[in-house]
């Protein structure tokens, strides 16, 4: 059990559509980060949420947006899907105190056709 729960596990969408991915962090964790992992590559940082605000952002266009709720869960939204958005999307959570690494979920496999 990863402790971080992501849903759905798999998703197929059509170009131009919008998608929402969900993440429940590990109990006790208050910081959530999202990553995109394309085949054969390491996870690429999308953004990080803490106290319901986006705190850090990677090099992703505005089509990628997110939200964090008061219970620390988070959503990743992608608008106007492109074929290149097909990837594994990972959610990771940690406690904001220093000295803690991230716990990763199993990811959502998004396929854009």
């Amino acid at each position, binding site marked *: 059990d990863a402790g971080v729960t992501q849903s759905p596990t798999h998703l197929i969408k059509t170009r131009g559509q919008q998608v929402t991915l969900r993440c429940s962090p590990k109990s006790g964790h208050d910081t959530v*980060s999202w990553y995109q992992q394309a085949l054969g590559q390491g996870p690429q940082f999308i953004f990080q949420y803490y106290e319901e605000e986006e705190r850090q952002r990677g090099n992703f266009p505005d089509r990628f947006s997110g939200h964090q709720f008061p219970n620390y869960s988070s959503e990743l939204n992608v608008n106007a899907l492109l074929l290149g958005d097909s990837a594994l999307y990972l959610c990771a959570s940690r406690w904001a105190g220093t*000295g803690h690494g991230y716990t990763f979920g199993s990811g959502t496999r998004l396929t854009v056709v």
Partner: protein
Amino acid sequence: AQSVSQHNHHVILSEAASLELGCNYSYGGTVNLFWYVQYPGQHLQLLLKYFSGDPLVKGIKGFEAEFIKSKFSFNLRKPSVQWSDTAEYFCAVIWTNAGKSTFGDGTTLTVKP
């Protein structure tokens, strides 16, 4: 741009052989360093982390890593690998002034019984 480089894309070893996986990162100030492992069909798991203090860090499953500040390196080592160590290994860096995390592209380790 801040970057993380893992030198070996695929390493093949026999059981009981010693392992060293390279990880170098670009200069950018104070860093937090991580190694993650992803076993086939499973989520990313934290192997070990370095935030400060003793540059030789011991992690789970007999792995260790050494932070060499002058070389911007954080190489992962294990004296004697087992077949069950077959997995993909990712080095990750957080530059504390930026707060963003960057992963290397990973090294696939195959251990032959």
